[in-house]
């Protein structure tokens, strides 16, 4: 597609429920990233996929968080047993193999846990 597409745009969920967030990267971008942005703060790295290599999961805050990506296509970020502190905007981005020219970001999913 023309840009990085994320869905849903907004999600309200009850504490304890599981949620799935989706990211469609730009076609041809081998690298895909998930970041979390809490209110009034900068972006925190969560996870990075590069082609078929093992993902860099070093930023996932707990084992309630997981992400999958098949090849160079869609990725899903799953948060199990959501907590109120999970409320944030979750931003996805993609890039060609090396991201040092900068990524292309999506518009994010705003997750609110009530």
């Amino acid at each position, binding site marked *: 597609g023309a840009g990085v597409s994320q869905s849903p745009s907004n999600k309200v969920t009850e504490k304890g429920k599981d949620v799935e967030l989706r990211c469609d990267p730009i076609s041809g971008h081998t*690298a895909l*990233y998930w*970041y979390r942005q809490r209110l*009034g*703060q*900068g*972006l*925190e*790295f969560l996870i*990075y996929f*590069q082609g078929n290599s093992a993902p*860099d999961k070093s930023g996932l805050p707990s084992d309630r968080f997981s992400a999958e990506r098949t090849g160079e296509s869609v990725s899903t970020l799953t948060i199990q047993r959501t907590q109120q502190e999970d409320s944030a*905007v979750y*931003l996805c*981005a993609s*890039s060609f193999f*090396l*991201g*040092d*020219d*900068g*990524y292309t*970001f*999506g*518009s*994010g999913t*705003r997750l609110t846990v009530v």
Partner: protein
Amino acid sequence: AQTVTQSQPEMSVQEAETVTLSCTYDTSENNYYLFWYKQPPSRQMILVIRQEAYKQQNATENRFSVNFQKAAKSFSLKISDSQLGDTAMYFCAFMKPNFNKFYFGSGTKLNVKP
């Protein structure tokens, strides 16, 4: 570890005037990349300007320019002839080569007043 500091949570500027946003960072790396991203209310992160640390010449993109002081680990963004559309959050970010992971500052909210 790499850290990025933006000491100005919020700034205001009159339309058509010039404003400078500050950013400092801490790293032991000699080569790296620095970025400024703009985040309007749409939430999408938009790349404003990029600087390679091994280049002494300051990057410029139309009304946007940087003052890169490598020894001082400072990377400020100057916006000339400010426009209402420049109103947004601005984030400074650092990336190591081949590392594909950003370290972001906490952001500066810029208000351009008519």
